[in-house]
């Protein structure tokens, strides 16, 4: 039986399977696992891990990440949010009187990279009708230069696809044992019903890779995560 983290990594790997270059942050062990899974499957994907504990990919300082993204040299990025709404706006600043760390690079990266919104907590507290503060908008007027934007929203319960024309999420799949009814109950925004099929479980091959080579490559930068999931 796959763990939820393994299932989520496999879902992400399918979403970004056409990537040439992906950047992942310090708080993103599951996206990093997805990238390593693709590499273990023989895909020639470049993975730039931000804030690596040893070394780092940039020699021009942290602005090089944004320069790369600005030129279109990063295909996929991952963003979360204290709040995410039905128009794919994300809020990293404040909600319900609480102050959160801040917007980081989201207001730029969301415009420049195809973006997977990823938040394990799936509740009405997080998935709200309207964010209290727009750190980065889910869509822009046609005259605003924008190469990137939302591709999908993945949570601990479900995968939503993003319909760019209609500016709405669509329930593509639900992770067992959760149900479409439960997803609707715990989502604060309106969305389209979609196919809402059960999310495919990781295959035996995927699980063998995850628990072998992938775990070994994740452990140095995400030691707590690797220990918790794989005991490595």
């Amino acid at each position: 039986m796959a763990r939820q983290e393994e299932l989520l990594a496999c879902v992400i790997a399918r979403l970004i399977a056409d990537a040439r270059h992906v950047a992942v942050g310090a708080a993103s062990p599951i996206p990093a696992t997805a990238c390593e899974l693709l590499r273990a499957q023989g895909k020639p994907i470049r993975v730039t891990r931000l804030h690596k504990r040893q070394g780092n990919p940039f020699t021009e300082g942290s602005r090089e990440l944004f320069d790369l993204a600005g030129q279109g040299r990063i295909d996929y990025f991952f963003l979360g949010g204290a709040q995410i709404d039905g128009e794919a706006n994300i809020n990293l600043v404040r909600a319900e009187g609480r102050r959160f760390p801040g917007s980081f690079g989201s207001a730029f990266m969301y415009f420049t990279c195809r973006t997977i919104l990823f938040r394990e907590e799936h509740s009405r507290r997080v998935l709200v009708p309207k964010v209290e503060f727009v750190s980065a908008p889910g869509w822009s007027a046609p005259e605003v230069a924008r190469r990137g934007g939302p591709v999908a929203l993945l949570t601990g319960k479900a995968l939503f696809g993003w319909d760019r024309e209609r500016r709405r999420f669509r329930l593509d799949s639900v992770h067992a044992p959760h149900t479409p009814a439960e997803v609707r109950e715990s989502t604060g925004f309106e969305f389209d019903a979609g196919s809402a099929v059960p999310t495919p479980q990781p295959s035996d091959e995927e699980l063998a890779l995850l628990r072998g080579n992938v775990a070994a490559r994740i452990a140095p930068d995400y030691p707590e995560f690797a220990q918790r999931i794989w005991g490595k």
Partner: protein
Amino acid sequence: MALPPDYSLPSMALVHALIRRKARNLRLLGVPVLGLSADLLIGAGCVAEVHSSAVSLGEAGLAPRFSEAAERGDIKVVDYTCPAVHTALQATEKGVPFMPLRGVIGSDLTRERSDWQIAQNPFTTAKDPILLVSAIVPDVALFHARWGDEAGNVWVGRRRELATIAHAARNAYVTVEEIRKGDMLEDELLAPGVISSVYISAIAQAVRGAAPLGVADLYAIDDAHLAMYAKRARSREGFNEYLDEFIWQGRKSSLPA
């Protein structure tokens, strides 16, 4: 006062010194984000304003003194997004009043700001709005470095955002692990990681001056210390105990006067 993030050579020695001197009404600029150094200064009452893309302790979680001060309105917070900070400092490096930046339009970050404007790209007849970010000139930049030398240069290796801060700030004060003889700009291998003395106001030696944060190849971030701080600083009392133990007491023992 421009400060680097926790992963990019903050001078904890200078942060501790500012707290011991009871500095007040500082306006902090995170380049592009802040962590432990800002949380300590805020908790110790040194800070009036925080301009940053984020303040967080990374894996150790929220920055507790920042969060409480922001929620209570004790400090003014001006929210940025990372590349806007870099762009504003790069404008100052070049001596131009502003620079354009893609993205950001439609974010609430752009609201009620006199230092950002959305303008039409003058080089096209098509509608093409773009954000203009005005230059930021920090009065002071503070950071730590692996080496200083007799010529007044400092070596930061690949942490080139520190060069941008030093270029843009009126004064850059740097603590270093070690002071080397000679001039590092004469050494072809060291020179690309050097910030020239042109931009450096003063250097002081502070061994382990970034601890409990890290210096590449010398000492790593002390994750256990950060987790301990995050836990204790959740309450005002716990934070004050931390200050007593690691900053006020430190003055009487190992730290130079």
